[in-house]
């Protein structure tokens, strides 16, 4: 029980609380008065003053805020350090780069929040899936409008990448990571089964997979990263459509699902592979790309249809059971595939901040995705793209780099670079990504594909559902 002495009376409570608030108010007001009444700092009256008045005033530093998803951030920090040095050397101005790295899963939501809250963001990674929406929202700008010299890069860009980074006829950025979906197969598995050649058609692939299954090499030789929301879901599936020599969308933006359409044939092939021949792993619906990569590395899958960069890890002797066994073949049938891009882009915020900010932001974008004279020799190089390629095996979307001896040397350890180049030359950009309803439609599409694999819907029903949803969203978008 509290004694009377220990109790705080209401009167005392109010008195202390009032005093605390009063002190806080007086302190705040006092600080404000101090701030407004202090004279501006006077220059020192030493000889330094004379020196300062004879020199042009130093330009204040430019602070560029870079927002990215976290992938090898130390490499980006190194490039940011390099551009700070180069900018100082070439322009005599301090360029500070602040990096905000966000996990990929949270990146899109984080950018939406940053933009809505007007949090300073000058340069940011943009994925082709979101580009149109972010452009329509007024968050990113066509860099060509502010830095026309960016068009000098156009001849160097892989055509599919250039198309992906272009909206309203203007270039919106420079490539950070640009890749193609490729077809990989385990050559050792083929040798054990006595199959000489990679499949030339999708039906032949199924037949090969059945043989691998019968031989006991893999119960489900084929697996995809088809968890809902997985970033390569549509790129992989529509690469199968394009490889059949078919387009999934017509010129009017209608989804093509009728008899003979590439999407119908692809859905039928998926259903057969999963349910009739039981060669497609139903676990695909819970797998992300890293899972597919690990399963290939363990020798449990004989095939992978995925972004080309994962072949580096699958063929890595340090971590993979099947190092050197995974080979590239052209996509079956017509050989076409989907190319996609992630780019360094400039925000409207940077533009609104004025010319210096645009210059600083563009310098950083060039450092990350373009060419910079790093050593002051007068020769510009794709410094960061080359670093990504050699260190992480990340493809780039820049044509001259396919001939770079250092990259060829590094990549030859895990892949046939010629075959990769051939496949890249047949990549196309999936134009549906530029529709404003694309992101709305993806979850419904992914749901139907997963139900198809589980045998919950027929091919006809799945196609009808995805088409109905496409048409509804298209109509809503006007």
């Amino acid at each position, binding site marked *: 029980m509290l004694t009377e002495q220990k109790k705080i009376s209401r009167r005392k409570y109010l008195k202390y609380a009032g005093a605390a608030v009063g002190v806080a108010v007086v302190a705040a007001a006092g600080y404000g008065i101090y701030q407004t009444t202090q004279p501006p700092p006077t220059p020192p009256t030493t000889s330094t003053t004379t020196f300062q008045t004879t020199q042009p005033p130093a330009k204040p530093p430019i602070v560029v805020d870079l927002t990215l998803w976290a992938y090898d951030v130390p490499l980006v920090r190194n490039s940011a350090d390099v551009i700070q040095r180069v900018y100082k050397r070439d322009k005599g101005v301090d360029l500070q780069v602040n990096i905000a790295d966000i996990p990929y899963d949270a990146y899109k939501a984080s950018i939406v929040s940053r933009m809505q809250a007007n949090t300073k963001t000058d340069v940011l990674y943009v994925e082709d899936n979101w580009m149109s929406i972010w452009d329509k929202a007024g968050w990113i700008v066509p860099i060509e409008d502010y830095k026309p010299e960016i068009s000098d890069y156009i001849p160097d860009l892989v055509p599919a990448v250039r198309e992906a980074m272009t909206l309203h006829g203007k270039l919106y950025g420079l490539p950070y990571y640009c890749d193609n979906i490729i077809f990989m197969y385990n050559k050792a598995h083929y040798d054990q089964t006595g199959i000489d050649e990679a499949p030339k058609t999708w039906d032949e692939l199924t037949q090969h997979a059945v043989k691998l299954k019968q031989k006991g090499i893999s119960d489900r030789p084929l697996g995809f990263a088809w968890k809902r929301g997985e970033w390569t879901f549509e790129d992989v599936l529509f690469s199968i459509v394009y490889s059949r020599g078919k387009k999934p969308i017509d010129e009017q933006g209608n989804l093509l699902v009728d008899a003979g359409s590439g999407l119908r044939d692809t859905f039928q092939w998926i259903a057969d592979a999963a349910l009739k021949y039981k060669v497609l792993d139903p676990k695909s619906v819970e*797998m992300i790309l890293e899972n597919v990569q690990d399963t290939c590395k*363990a020798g449990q899958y004989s095939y992978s249809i995925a972004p080309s960069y994962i072949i580096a890890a699958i063929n890595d002797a340090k971590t993979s059971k099947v190092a050197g066994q995974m080979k590239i073949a052209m996509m079956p049938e017509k050989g076409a595939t989907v190319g996609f891009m992630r780019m360094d882009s400039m925000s409207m915020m940077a533009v609104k901040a004025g010319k210096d900010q645009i210059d600083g932001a563009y310098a950083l974008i060039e450092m990350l995705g373009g060419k910079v004279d790093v050593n002051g020799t007068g020769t510009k190089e794709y410094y960061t793209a080359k670093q990504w390629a050699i260190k992480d095996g990340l493809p780039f979307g820049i044509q001259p780099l396919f001939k770079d001896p250092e990259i060829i040397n590094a990549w030859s350890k895990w892949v046939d670079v010629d075959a990769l180049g051939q496949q890249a030359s047949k990549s196309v950009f999936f134009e549906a990504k530029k529709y404003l309803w694309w992101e709305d439609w993806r979850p419904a599409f992914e749901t139907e594909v997963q139900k198809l694999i589980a045998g*919950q819907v027929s091919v006809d029903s799945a196609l009808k559902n995805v088409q109905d949803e496409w048409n509804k969203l298209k109509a809503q978008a006007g």
Partner: protein
Amino acid sequence: MSESSGTRSDNRFGLLSILPTVGFLTVLSTAPLLYAFALSFQKYKLTSPGQHPFIFLDNYAKVVDSYHFAAAITNTLVFTVGAVIFVFLVSLIFSLALNERFRGSGWLRVLILIPWAIPEMASALVWRWIYDSHFGVLNALLVYVIPVFQSYQSWLGNPAYAMPAILVPQIWKEVPLCVLLFLTGYSTIPQSLYEAAKIDGANPFARFRRITIPMLKPIIQIILVYETIMGIASLAYVYILTGGGPGDATTTLSWYTYMASFSFADFGQGAAVAVIMSVISLVFIALYFRLIPTRKFGAVGV
């Protein structure tokens, strides 16, 4: 000082004391809620910046008509009811065990809090690894250690398993707090009641049913309300473990509101789903208050 002026003074003091709390709640909770409510009646697409006309119930109509709604509302109800029931029962059992004094019970009381202290996103990633269909520890356990299955199962990819698979981490995460609440409740029940019941010949089950449960009603009410809200709002396990799949087996309203806002760039639609979630929560809460009246009973707030 007269009695009435004393009462007035008491009231004034009470009001002044709760003012900071009310202020914080208004700024951090009520205002955003009202804003979301207002947003749900506006066209608020990020692709039309600066144009947010009042469209009355259009967002709600769009939500109800959407591809995802039927599955989302069904799954949300299944998930929430499942989570509330299991969290309640498991934490009741654990708390009864931990309420007994035995060697190590103090340590156990601390250890049981660990799941509650781990951020939801981090624990979701751990559970993803546990469930992995090719290399996961759960499969290894059930195939090699306790051979229940002959081959590895797809916990997150099989429509029959996916909902239980996301419920387990939710229960694992929520049980510690409820155990703590139950333990707090037990400590406020007067021992004299149990002693009197013993003298009257009541067996342990009768004492639990006639004393413990009635005296815990306010705590039970808090747990049910809190767990319902947590169940309806739970996102991390759906987002990280299944993405709402396989098919639409785990598509929930929280997933839908997240996608509508941040992926479809439609804050109006996202707000409409959020309001629907709030209404469902309120219905549940009203039901609890009706079914479990606490005025006559209770160790807290009597």
